[in-house]
């Protein structure tokens, strides 16, 4: 019964989350900042016109226009294939759809489901350093779905690189891998729709990026006053050693709530791209929470207990627009370095044409204390219009 519960938890992990779309693998193309292609300083979500252009000209297998005829902002890659021309002005729109097939297998059972991982409308207005950003979409739940917005914020960035953002967003921490179920995201609560309300300040230079945010915690809880609400602070410092290598230091603190004791994390990540077709990211995090080992996560107590997460993601572009990924991951239990879960994740991302991607993922998760294995297969057709 407990095993079935664990497997269903895996299912919920995939369903109750979203794909971020941010792609740290593009470090290999010498893009070491999310903001080159995304409006959000923490990556993911709506693409900028530059990001859309890149998705066609450099990432898709067949989308590239003939040499010397690179389109402007209203080519095939634009919203609705550029049908609106200049009518939107400084406003960008996007429709993000991900019909998906999920199958989870484990000893003695399994389940599968077809659903929309993502069905969102995204919009941003940007002018004179100000950005207003919002999203509205259908969120899949284990039972049914709901229409809601998980991200909306206002920001300003000055020409000297100083930025301020306020609203609801994913706080900056570590490397925002596209796979939201990656252990470095999932175990920090960075995979769910329930992002945080926060004020973020940032400072960006040619070889560094500092982001610090503070706020009242999980957004849904802050809005309705439920028990998960707690003070949350996060910080991230990215040091770009070279155009194809970056070092990232991160920290996170969440205050005590009725849902969990005070907890946090500190981590280091390093990314390097030896060639323009290969990127390697590694991240190690130490998570800590108040209380003794073995205590329920809902109860606080004396002392502090720790858990560890290690992850590597290696991405190889075997042909233009065809990426293969492999990602070994380890997560220990709190207070028990022999416990936890080992994962081998394999993925393929096919980008045949602008607006159309196919992503296939396979996860082999083994619980270390009892060798219980959960195999998860996820196929997604990603339409970004």
């Amino acid at each position, binding site marked *: 019964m407990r095993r079935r519960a664990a497997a269903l938890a895996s299912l919920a992990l995939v369903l109750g989350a979203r794909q971020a779309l941010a792609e740290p693998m593009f470090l*290999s*193309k*010498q*893009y*070491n*900042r999310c*903001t*080159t292609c995304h409006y959000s300083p923490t990556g993911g979500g709506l693409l*900028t*016109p*530059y990001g859309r*252009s*890149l998705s066609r*000209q*450099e990432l898709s297998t067949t989308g*590239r226009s003939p*040499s*010397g005829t*690179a389109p*402007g*902002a209203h080519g095939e890659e634009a919203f609705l294939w550029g049908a609106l021309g200049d009518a939107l002005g400084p406003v960008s729109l996007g429709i993000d759809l991900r019909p998906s097939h999920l199958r989870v297998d484990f000893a003695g059972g399994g389940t599968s489901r077809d659903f929309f991982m993502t069905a969102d409308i995204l919009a941003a207005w*940007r002018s004179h350093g100000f950005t207003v950003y919002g999203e509205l979409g259908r969120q899949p739940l284990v039972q049914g779905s709901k229409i809601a917005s998980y991200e909306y914020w206002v920001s300003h960035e000055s020409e000297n*690189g100083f930025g301020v953002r306020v609203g609801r967003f994913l706080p900056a921490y570590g490397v925002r891998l596209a796979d939201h179920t990656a252990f470095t995201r999932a175990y920090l609560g960075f995979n769910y729709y329930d992002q945080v309300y926060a004020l973020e300040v940032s400072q*960006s*230079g*040619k*070889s560094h*990026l500092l982001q610090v945010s503070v706020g009242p915690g999980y957004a849904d809880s802050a809005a309705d006053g439920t028990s998960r609400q707690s003070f949350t602070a996060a910080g991230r410092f990215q040091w*770009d050693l*070279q*155009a*194809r290598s970056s070092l990232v230091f991160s920290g996170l603190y969440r205050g005590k709530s009725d849902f969990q004791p005070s907890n946090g994390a500190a981590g280091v990540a390093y990314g390097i791209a030896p060639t*323009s077709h290969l990127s390697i990211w590694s991240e190690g995090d130490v998570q800590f929470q108040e209380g003794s080992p073995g205590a329920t996560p809902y109860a606080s107590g004396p002392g502090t207990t720790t858990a560890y997460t290690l992850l590597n993601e290696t991405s190889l572009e075997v042909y233009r627009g065809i990426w293969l990924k492999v990602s070994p991951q380890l997560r220990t239990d709190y207070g028990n370095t022999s416990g936890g879960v080992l994962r081998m994740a394999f993925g393929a991302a096919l980008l045949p044409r602008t607006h159309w991607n196919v992503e296939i993922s396979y996860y082999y998760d083994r619980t270390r204390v009892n060798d219980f294995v959960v195999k998860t297969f996820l196929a997604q057709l990603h339409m970004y219009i």
Partner: protein
Amino acid sequence: MERPLRDRRWRAASLAASLLALAAGSSLAGEDAAWRVVRGDVRVTCPMTVGGSFEARTTALTGTLVLAGASRAAFTGDLSVELGTLDTGIGLRDEHLRGEYLQIGQGEAFKRAVLSDIQLGDVDPATFQGKTRFTGVFLLHGTKKAIAGQATVRREGPRVRVDASFPLLVSDFGIPKPRYLGVGVTNEVSVAVTLVAEPAAGVEVRR
């Protein structure tokens, strides 16, 4: 006692040979030393307006430098880079760099970047190893400008290895402001050059 005629002739021949040798020696001492680049790597780091940076890279560095005098480390000759070989890792960026900004199709003066009139700091060119400042004249986008930077010189047997870097302002060379769909390159970029040079064949190199 008068010396035998043969002995006098021998001494005269010896003296002539000595003078010739001295003259030849003087000529060698005044000969300009020449170094030819046998291997090079040029990296142009371009910071982006949204933060971060990318590198444009090439190994198409050629040139010969000739030491212009014994007392100061000034060189004639030049170092030249084929700009059409600059590679940023993605095609669209390469196209924009070469076509819209460096405009290499506009003629010979646009096809290459050339560094000439190189002069090192106050160092002995015959024995110098280590760090020094240098100055030069840089031709880019059909425009010549004086530049200044840092160089590290190391002698590796008969060869010399140089790691040099210098900043330059895009606007100094009349290059259109690099910007595409809201993402641009800052006005100041930096150039890093690593080269290995060896004595040019047929020319005596002063040590």
